[in-house]
């Protein structure tokens, strides 16, 4: 291999090198062509066709490890779509659903794809980390985004086109802690568990711990877990050695459900308070009869007795073998409903006439933020920065039936927040 000098033109090494250079030139040419062809990426300057339906894009995690949420969201959005189509509406709306997967590059690709196809607004992405990647792209191109499930701090602050219907946990957390303390006023010893590799859970636990500190309670044990963990023998036995009277968990459905089950099996009998990552019927099959009695702070309560929520519950049950919907599906429904209603309001007053797509997006964003909506989450509206203002929050207790495989969230407390406080 170390031949050098005296190379004839027929030498395979020389030929290979020349072939390499030729192919490299071809690749470079192809890339340049692709770069040129892919330059115009946004039809924002085109005029709207007044007859055509407006397209709404949704980028949800249908694959990857967040797909459980994505599948719930797909359900919520398609139910909302069916329900709203049946109502009288002056402007037709079409939905384009794309897989935003569970990683950042895929979310960006899905957003780019949908924007290029000329959507008027976007719903998604599923994870907060993905939102930090994809939302700035929509912001720069002036496409309204409604996040159905991003709860991390700073999402609406990404820009003027970014909003969310998922209330931040700071509002909800104190309710559930106070409820637990009301039931057991002598509680002194609190153990805290949280999934440390999950943006939602780490934000949530910070708020829980702040509330605990404000109530004069210092956790006797803080346990960090991972989203992909299944076996919690180590953290649980370590926490139980501190004899806690209250356990506060910030986790997602799977790991949280497992954690609750194993806490109970290992003999913990005190109260358990969980964050709203577990506000989904998906936990019933995981923690089964051991779910019973868990206190949960909810941004969505299936028990809410309003026409729209009853419709949502009915449609969800029809599509899902009689199950009750969870928060993720309700928030996805809400995201679709909010955009749909804003579109109809703009259409009614003739606001889309003669506009380009880019101008229509701006109009829609303005309308979106200024409206009030009656959703399955209760009445909501937006702050000027895009943060949701939700009027009602709930504390529920899980009640499992005798089979231990099905249950429901029974409302124990409902709180109306005074107008204006986020």
């Amino acid at each position, binding site marked *: 291999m170390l031949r050098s000098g005296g190379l004839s033109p027929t030498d395979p090494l020389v030929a290979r090198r020349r072939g390499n250079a030729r192919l490299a030139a071809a690749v470079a040419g192809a890339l340049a062509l692709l770069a040129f062809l892919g330059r115009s990426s946004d039809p924002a300057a085109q005029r709207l066709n007044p007859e055509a339906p407006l397209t709404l894009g949704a980028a949800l995690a249908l*694959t990857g*490890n967040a*797909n*459980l949420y*994505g*599948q719930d969201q797909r359900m919520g959005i398609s139910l909302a779509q069916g329900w709203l189509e049946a109502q009288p509406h002056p402007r037709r709306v079409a939905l384009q659903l794309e897989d935003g997967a569970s990683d950042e590059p895929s979310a960006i690709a899905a957003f780019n794809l949908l924007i290029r196809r000329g959507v008027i607004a976007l719903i998604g992405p599923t994870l907060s980390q993905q939102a930090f990647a994809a939302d700035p792209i929509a912001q720069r191109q002036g496409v309204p985004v409604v996040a159905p499930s991003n709860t991390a701090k700073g999402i609406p602050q990404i820009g003027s086109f970014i909003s969310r219907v998922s209330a931040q946990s700071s509002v909800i957390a104190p309710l559930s802690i106070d409820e637990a303390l009301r039931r057991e006023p002598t509680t002194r010893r609190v153990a805290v568990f949280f999934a*440390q590799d999950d943006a939602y859970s780490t934000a949530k636990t910070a708020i829980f711990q702040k509330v605990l500190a404000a109530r004069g309670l210092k956790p006797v*044990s*803080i*346990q*960090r*877990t*991972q989203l*992909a*963990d*299944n*076996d919690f*023998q*180590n*953290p649980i*036995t*370590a*926490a*139980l*050695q501190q004899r806690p009277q209250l356990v506060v968990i910030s986790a997602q*459905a*799977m*790991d949280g*459900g*497992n954690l609750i*089950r*194993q806490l*109970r*099996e*290992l*003999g913990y009998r005190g109260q358990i308070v969980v964050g709203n990552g577990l506000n989904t019927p*998906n936990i019933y*099959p*995981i923690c*089964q009869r051991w779910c019973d009695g868990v206190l949960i702070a909810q941004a969505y309560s299936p028990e809410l007795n309003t026409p729209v929520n009853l419709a949502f519950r009915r449609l969800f049950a029809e*599509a*899902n*073998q009689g*199950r009750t919907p969870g928060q993720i599906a309700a928030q996805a429904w809400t995201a679709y409903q909010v955009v749909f209603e804003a579109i109809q309001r703009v259409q009614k007053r003739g606001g889309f006439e003669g506009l380009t797509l880019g101008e229509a997006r701006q109009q829609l964003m303005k309308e979106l933020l200024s409206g009030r909506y009656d959703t399955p989450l209760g009445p909501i509206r937006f702050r000027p920065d895009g943060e949701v203002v939700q009027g009602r929050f709930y504390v529920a207790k899980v009640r499992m039936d005798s089979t*231990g495989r099905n249950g429901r969230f029974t409302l124990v407390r409902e709180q109306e927040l005074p107008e204006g406080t986020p």
Partner: protein
Amino acid sequence: MIDTLLQTLLNGAASGGVYALVALGYTLIFSVLGVINFAQGALFSLGGYLTYLLLGGKIGVNGALPGWGLPIELPFWLALLLAALGSGAVGLLVERIAFAPLRRRGAEPLLSLITSLGAGVVLVNLLQLLMGAEGYAFPQAAAGLAHLPESLLLGGARIRTIQVLLLVISALAVASLSLWLERSRSGKAMRAVAEDPTTATLLGINSVAVVRLAFLLSGMLAGLGGGLIGMSVSLAGPYFGISYGLKGLAVLVLGGLGSVPGAIVGGLVMGLAEALIPSEASGWRDALAFAILFAVLVLRPSGLLGRRQLEKV
């Protein structure tokens, strides 16, 4: 103090047993072929889902056939055995598609890292299409555990009954596997191929059959592990086997690539090391496993109990 120590030991044994089971699956294949089967984690998941279906479980609403289930409800033991066989069969299939063609062509062994990973990606995503992403829990009555207490108190330390059961079954599986390798004809053939494939072939051992046997057995081990874990902590989506797969890889190296006792000792050491991490530092747990692995590789590349020498440079 004694209680805490006992509890730590117990915790370490409980998770270490599972790690050993996963690592053994890798070990069998590595010992005969010198390659790693990255589809092992997916086979682990598959075993869990098969067990669930054989127990009479129904497919959830996000799956391809919502509400569908096998028309049988087998007892846990039988379901576990059949699921292990099923995973073993798929393990054989993985060998046929991802490994055998490469070996026939004499391609670089490292290509099988990629092909087996591809097989894993296909398997996990097929599972997701069929079963949906939701979690499934096994019916508790199936294992006949309904009449036992949920956890046992052993001298001040507490452990869940199901984990004791899990540990016993893994120990039985590992013991019978070792015995089989030691005593049986095909076990001896497998060890001979692991020792020296060329000589083994000269001695008239059918090395292709031995390789297939290794894939069948390691697939069965993965299926067994998946079913047991599913029983203990339920199935948290099709990806749940993957994290076990990665941890098993660390254990494999820790014990010494290709060494059966090494995999067992490595699993226990890893379980114990994790149990010893104080709560404040529990976020670093996964780094610890790989830091140990890293240190072992650099200081003692043959692993704790490895007997194979590194290629001479």
